[in-house]
């Protein structure tokens, strides 16, 4: 008998088997991303002071961060925690982040071995997408707000650089040729204001920016929309900088609808498409088990089919 490719039925059945297995393991492959934190709408101003009672009153999401383990430089695994919340009003969005840190590390004159504590929030440039977690890709770039103790704050973009022509790059206010996969956005987009305090072994940080996007590589915030973020933290006392950092996975944020649609906001927000269904990164173990199941199922059904007398 001549070998044949498994018929379509085999593949369909295998998919069911895998889906069933995945459900058993409680690890859905395709899912609506469940927001883990709601970005509250505020009718009024957003306090820049991290000590303001306002921040006390908001629910916070606790994120566990692990050592970056994809690219050089690598370190042994360890974890860190950040608590984050966010709120927005007609014109601005504010992120509040707090974390325990036994030492306050800031750069000092002559600090050749001194590294500042730092935190970054990474967002996809396009709402609804989940770019490569390690600073995006050419087709799916990420926008990053990077804070370094005590008061440096920068808007960066990563992933996009090498996919653009020199002309396109210049039009975006970037240098003609990319100098690095992660780049600072032009001065006009450096619109974050940050305020941080270190008190009682704890950093509290507020970062504020306008909600609208005024640059194609800047993430806009849309009332009612969903945001995905990755958190990163550098612990200065452990000489963390660059790739020596701790990062979270993608975390979901839901931007609360304002009670009445605020017209002023819709004017400034860039048009973006909401994608309800997004593919989440599935742990390798699940992929492995699923793949194995697929092979086993395909093989079983194929053998069953081959045992039946061929109609051909």
């Amino acid at each position, binding site marked *: 008998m001549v070998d044949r490719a498994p018929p379509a039925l085999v593949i369909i059945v295998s998919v069911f088997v895998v889906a069933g297995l995945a459900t058993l393991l409680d690890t859905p492959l395709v899912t609506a991303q469940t927001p883990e934190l709601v970005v509250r709408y505020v009718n009024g101003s957003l306090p820049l002071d991290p000590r303001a009672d306002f921040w006390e009153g908001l629910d916070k999401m606790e994120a566990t961060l692990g050592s970056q383990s994809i690219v050089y*430089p*690598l*370190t042994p695994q360890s974890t860190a925690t950040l608590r984050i919340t966010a709120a927005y009003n007609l014109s601005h969005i504010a992120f509040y982040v707090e974390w325990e840190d036994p030492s306050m590390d800031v750069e000092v004159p*002559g*600090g*050749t071995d001194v590294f500042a504590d730092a935190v970054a929030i990474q967002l996809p440039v396009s709402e609804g997408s989940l770019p490569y977690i390690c600073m995006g890709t050419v087709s799916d770039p990420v926008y990053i707000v990077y804070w370094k103790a005590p008061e440096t704050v920068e808007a960066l973009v990563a992933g996009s650089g090498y996919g653009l022509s020199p002309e396109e790059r210049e039009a975006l206010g970037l240098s003609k040729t990319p100098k*690095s996969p992660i780049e600072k956005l032009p001065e006009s987009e450096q619109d974050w204001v940050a305020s941080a305090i270190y008190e009682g072994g704890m950093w509290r940080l507020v970062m504020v920016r306008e909600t609208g996007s005024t640059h194609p590589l800047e993430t806009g915030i849309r009332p009612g929309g969903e945001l995905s973020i990755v958190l990163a933290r550098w612990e200065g006392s452990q000489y963390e900088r*660059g790739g020596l950092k701790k990062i979270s996975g993608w975390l979901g944020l839901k931007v609360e609808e304002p009670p009445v649609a605020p017209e002023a906001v819709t004017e400034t927000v860039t048009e973006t498409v909401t994608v309800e269904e997004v593919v989440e990164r599935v742990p390798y173990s699940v992929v492995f088990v699923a793949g194995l199941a697929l092979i086993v199922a395909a093989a079983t059904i194929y053998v069953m089919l081959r045992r039946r007398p061929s109609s051909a």
Partner: protein
Amino acid sequence: MVRAQVSMVMVLDKCIGCHTCSITCKHVWTNREGMEYAWWNNVETRPGVGYPFKWEDQERYGGGWVLENGKLRLKLEKENHYKPPSIEEYYHPFTYDYETLFTEELKDEQPTANPVSLLTRERIDVKWGPNWDDDLAGGDVYAKMDPNWRSVEKEIYLNYKGVFMFWLPRICNHCINPPCLVSCPRKAVYKREEDGIVLIDQVRCRGYRFCVTACPYKKVYYNWKTGKSEKCIFCYPRFETGQAPVCTESCVGRIRYVGVVLYDEERVEEAAKAPLEKLVQAQRDIILDPWDPGVARKARESGVPENFIKAARESPVYYMFKKWEIALPIHPEFRTLPMVVYVPPLNPVVTTLDRRGLYSADYRDVLPIIDELRIPIRYLANMFAAGNEEEVRKALKKLIAIREYFRMVNVEGKSKLEASRILEENGLSREDADLMYKWLAIGKERWIIPTSKKELRISIARRG
């Protein structure tokens, strides 16, 4: 592929420890806020600990390469050692409060200008500096801590009679296998294709300082003002116009020689992985003979300009490092293939009182006791040959032979032919001797520098 590499020889017997090189370099390149503590060129007294404090101790600083299961790995990565040196390990930069000399009220004592921190502007007590143990070799504090005493009975050399000292000027070695470059995740450190000068792109650099840790010679410095790392640039704007680096031009002892060598890029990794005792030889092996027509042809095919090939043929570095084997790389065990090489010191020039009561340096008397020279061979081997004493002996013997040859001719009135026996015994010719004399003794034509790609220059109409 054949590459051209600019390199330097320093002849240690000739260094007088005047620090002119460091001062001129400082004035030209690093006399800026953020770089007060940085000395792209520094001069150390040996035995001693150098700058930054004990820089040769990689257990402390995590620099260089290590060989692990036949693979080269950055020590900083293998050992998760990412910390760069602290400012105190370099030294706390200071000036003096000269103002008091003018403003002090009239008193019985002379006014004193006290040291003031260049970082905080406050008065400080100076306890350590970039050449703190200057001229104090044999002193019982720092000399003892020198990491090159391994397998040497150092006590002998620390007592009054046995004491020795020499100066060790240091710059970036513009290594052929630079860990500073490989350690940079931003690819900000690069090695120029045309001449091998290692530079840091100040736009790409984000001040992570992995290069600072990875360089085992501690020759990358973090500029705390700009937040970027900087290093010796081999005075490339001067080099490109045919001038020697400032340290070389200003060197009082005329100890520095600059030239180009050609090397085989394909064999770099193999050379960097050589067993410890073969590291010096392996580095020499990748340096190619610029007179070999095959090498010249390959160099041309690789894009090496004609003036670089010509310069390689006249290069003092080629002769001293490769042909005569009198120059040695500094700490080859870091596996960086450093391209600043040193002619080890004989110090003091060996003379004995002969039977007639005259000072002489009789070759026949000296060679058998080469291991009893004032500076222990083992110490030099630890510094310049990854412990291989034979490499040091070979270099010192040649240095003695050349002295003896000229003594026989000039003092004893022997014919050159007769005296040349000593040269032959050491694999040298009379032509070699004349060249050595020109370079080492007279100090003529100490640098042979090709200007950058002459043939590519735009020709512009002249005036008149």
